[in-house]
């Protein structure tokens, strides 16, 4: 699949993982990634009802009950939207996402680990589930 997450709006830098650092008890850490494809002539749609159902970006937890809860992560389509976003809630990003820089969808992420001992959490992932890629 050519679609993926990128660090930049030009879709130059595909992300293999997303490293985020937050000071314990400090301000939440905000990040911005782009969902898109640098391959021309592609589209991404939900497999349930392509072109009708929304493609969703969600937060998945590889080890529920331990590590960091998905509620520690908020998603929004704008920086301002993070304020009212609900931790752990999936984000609708459109019924069809076209490839190319003009079709890239910015996904704003806010992580708040809360109080606790310094540690590294690797149980959470950003995910786009059950989608199909096809030619435009």
């Amino acid at each position, binding site marked *: 699949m050519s679609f993926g*997450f990128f660090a930049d*709006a*030009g879709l*130059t*830098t595909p992300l293999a*993982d997303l*490293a985020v650092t*937050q000071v*314990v008890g400090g301000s939440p850490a905000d990040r911005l990634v782009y969902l898109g494809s640098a391959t021309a002539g592609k589209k991404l749609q939900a497999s349930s009802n392509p072109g009708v159902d929304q493609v969703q970006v969600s937060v*998945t937890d590889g080890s529920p009950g331990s590590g960091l809860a998905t509620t520690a992560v908020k998603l929004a389509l704008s920086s301002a939207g993070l304020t009212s976003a609900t931790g752990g809630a999936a984000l609708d990003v459109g019924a069809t996402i076209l490839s190319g820089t003009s079709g890239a969808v910015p996904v704003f992420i806010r992580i708040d680990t809360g109080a606790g001992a310094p540690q590294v959490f690797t149980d959470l992932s950003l995910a786009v589930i059950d989608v199909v890629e096809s030619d435009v």
Partner: protein
Amino acid sequence: MAFPAGGYADIAAGTADGLVYYWPFDEASGATFAEVVAGVGGYAHGFTVPGDTVAAGLVGNCRDASAAVTTGDVSAFVIDPPDDTQPPLSQFTVSLWFKIADLEEYSVVCEVGEQSGDFMRAYVYDATAGVLAVEYGYLYAESAAASISDGTWAMLTVTQDAVNSKAYLNGVQIGSDNAVGALRIAKGLTERHASKFGAHFYDPIVRGVAVDEAAMWSRALTQPEIADLWNAGAGTSIVIDVSGGAGGPISLPLVITSASAAQTISLPVRVSAVVPQTLSLPMRISAIDSSVVGGLDGAAGWAAAPGGAWQAIVTLDGTDISDRLTGQILVWFADDEARTAEFAFLPASTLQPMSLTGRHVYIAFAQGSGINAQPMFSGVVDAPAIEARTGIIRCVCTDQLQEVFSNAPRDWIDEAVGGRWHESVSGQQADNWQYMLDRLASVPASVALDVAQSPRVLPWRGLPRTLTVRDADVIDGSLSIELPSRDQMRTRIDVRAQYRYTRLRGRGIVAAFNKPFAYYASYGGPGTGLRLLQWPTVSMIGAATESLPGWTLAANPVITSPPSGVYYANPPDFGGYIIPPDVAPTLAMGFTAYYHTRWQQVVTETYEIAVTLPALESALGGPVAETAGATLQADSVSDDWSRDDSVAPTLTVPLVGDVSLSWQPAGAAAADRDEMLRTLLDRAWVRLYAAQRTGRVRWSLPARPDIWLDVWAQIESGSVRAAGKIVEGRHVLDLDTGEATSELAIAVGLPGGAEASLPSWSLPSVDAPDDTRPVSAYSCEIGDYVGGDTGSAPFDEDTMIGFCTNVVNGHGTNLYPHQLSIRSPEIAAEDRDPLDLTASAEIAVSVPTYLLEIDP
């Protein structure tokens, strides 16, 4: 409304279709034929129709009398109405198919109606040319030639609605009239106007007419409906709906075609079976202790940099190679430059070194036992190198700054970077990286990618993160200060911009020569005779005014002729002369003519603006200058514009006077000029600002991985107080000892600590051109010169421009040629030559200054 296929009609009362009579002529035999809607019968009236027979018609059978017809035979297919009292149809349609074996003029095709002259008649008007004529009330229509021919079926249709009557032949309208009328079929068989097909009652000429599919409606059919009846010449039977409903019987003709061979229609169907997929981006969230990034707000200071051992975490395409690292790990970062990293490792197995290039690298520094890991670098391997003796592979990595910006959409750059950009300043930029740098040149900010490779625009002041560094934090002896050199600083930027466009100009001038009657005929007083001059002639004026090089005659000249009459001297005994009525109009006392011309004048506006820092210039003892420039040029109009008044843009030239239009099309308008100037001025200010902040304060401290270009640092050393933005740095981790340091530098400039922002410029303007010209610029030279008189000078064709005449009855010498010449005014050089307009200004500005105190 069009009939459905098959010719559907609804005869129920009040329905739209309104079929009232229909004779299909489909009987298999017999002398009568049925009307199948209202029961109106029909038969061969009075006699046997010669040759009448049932034959195969256009649709089903027809009545055909075309086989044996003799001139003078009287016959017709007569329509017999069931009820004489039925009302006439104020709106109707009559339609039938007919075929005449041998066209003969005035052969009647049909005659319908009885209403005192309101009957419709169609007949052959011109047998040779194949013309059919139709008459109904005021309607008279003739078909085009060759519309009907021997033995060929044709369809006649006549309609009458509330306004118009129309005639159609073969579905095509051949005439119409806006009169109204009424029609009903004839009363009885003995009536003169019995409705009939194929005969004229009074002059019963029958020429072998075959008829088929005749019908009448109580409304005017529309052209599409008539076209349905015509059915491309194939005709159609009319299906009758007797249900009275809007629906009713539906006819579905079956067309069965025997194909020569079986065929297959194929539509490839491409079915892609795909499995729903999931995109996943693992998150590595490091929650670190506040102590390792303490003091960032600066207010309380930072007591001391954290010490202790560090370890590196390095992944190569997601594979952790931390335990195979060796030597040092270095990470560099600087404003407007790519972040780079370097590390060395021993591969676990045989490795193709070239395969490393482009592979993703992630580097983090973690404290002690691996806690407080902080990302340091994310990017790709740019240049791997191998130490042949040890097999160690050393990788130099980049975060792809330039590549990221090269791929960034311009609208994203416009929004993220801001600033100004103008093509005349930067030229056309195909590369977005260069485009971004051009915009950045007008913004007091830098760019870089953060540790996650996301682009960031970093202002030079007003950064959200601050850091206070004290003596205790600094590694001994590492603090150094580099002040800007004179060569690095700038005290002024000389901006020179040119804006070039075309001024479209027009001028109207007058050529006038007018003399009183006495000029041409005068007498010297009592006892003297008349003094007569040769008159100008109308033809002479016409020739002289017709062509004036470089000018276009606006209109025919206005010529004043003398009145005819008899003119006497005083006293009359001394003579007189006569201007006859037929001669007077050929003579002239004077004339007035107007001309105009158009031309283009190139205008160059030059702006010379010095943006200066006066105080610094004074301090340095003179200017340290740099220049910047740009040229904006508007496209010119066609050269034909000057020669052809019809070429756009329009310019209305006054009768006498000047008009001008500055040709400044979109993209090169005055607003674009101003944007060019503002772009240059913004860049000049940023350049001055940048030149003053070339000083650097450098220091090293135990590793602070979190410090990056988004930090404003204040140095509080015993001997130095300085503040500025972090502009470059290097983190070094020695893997053998676990020692890590951060080498940092801030930019400092002129001392003072004062804020200053980008000025809002007040642009100088050039003076408008002075178009005031003397009256002579708008009038032609036309003098008057009299020869043959006492004292007349010899003729000089170079100087005697105007009307040259002679005393007719004089006794002097030096006769002149009787002529008229006109000299147009010159267009002055200042009007025609390129125009240079200049504006100069010196704008004193200030730039932010910095905390920079040294107390040895």
